[in-house]
């Protein structure tokens, strides 16, 4: 799991049926000092995150676990919202 900032949204009307109704967000991964690192990714939202929020996300097959398991094709899912930056102890 890694920390990230939600920086945008993605709209895709035509998509695999198993992604129907899912919110797609662009996330920028952050390092331990909350500085941007690496390239932004598209993540499926499992917690109701919004733009500008500090979140953490999970990659790999486990990313599908918050949804109908074994039935949601995602390799990057937002699984939590960090309460505030002060809650990230460095």
């Amino acid at each position, binding site marked *: 799991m890694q920390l990230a900032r939600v920086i945008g949204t*993605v709209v895709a009307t035509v998509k695999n049926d198993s992604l129907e109704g899912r919110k797609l967000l662009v996330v920028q991964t952050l390092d331990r000092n909350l500085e941007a690192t690496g390239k932004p990714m598209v993540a499926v939202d499992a917690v109701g995150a919004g733009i500008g929020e500090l979140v953490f996300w999970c990659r790999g097959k486990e990313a599908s676990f918050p949804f109908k398991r074994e039935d949601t094709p995602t390799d990057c899912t937002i699984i939590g919202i960090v309460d505030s930056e002060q809650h990230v102890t460095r």
Partner: protein
Amino acid sequence: MIIARILGTVVSTQKDERLSGKKLLIVRPINVDGSDTTGYVVAVDTVGAGFHERVLVVAGSSARLAQGMKDVPVDAAIVGVIDTVDVN
């Protein structure tokens, strides 16, 4: 998931039987601003995407979780055609 642009097609007659009937496309990962990166991936199309379209590509074992991909030997699948990307 990554954003990619479709560069071309792959035709393969001799392949795993579970891949028969599946469309194979060559895609290049792109940045959120639409600029190209390097490299490419061969991905199975699950949505009917076309040449030069921006698409969502899911990689790894999650690619098998797309509808119609159960037990298919793939590690990259196109699961959406992108209308807009809005980054602040």
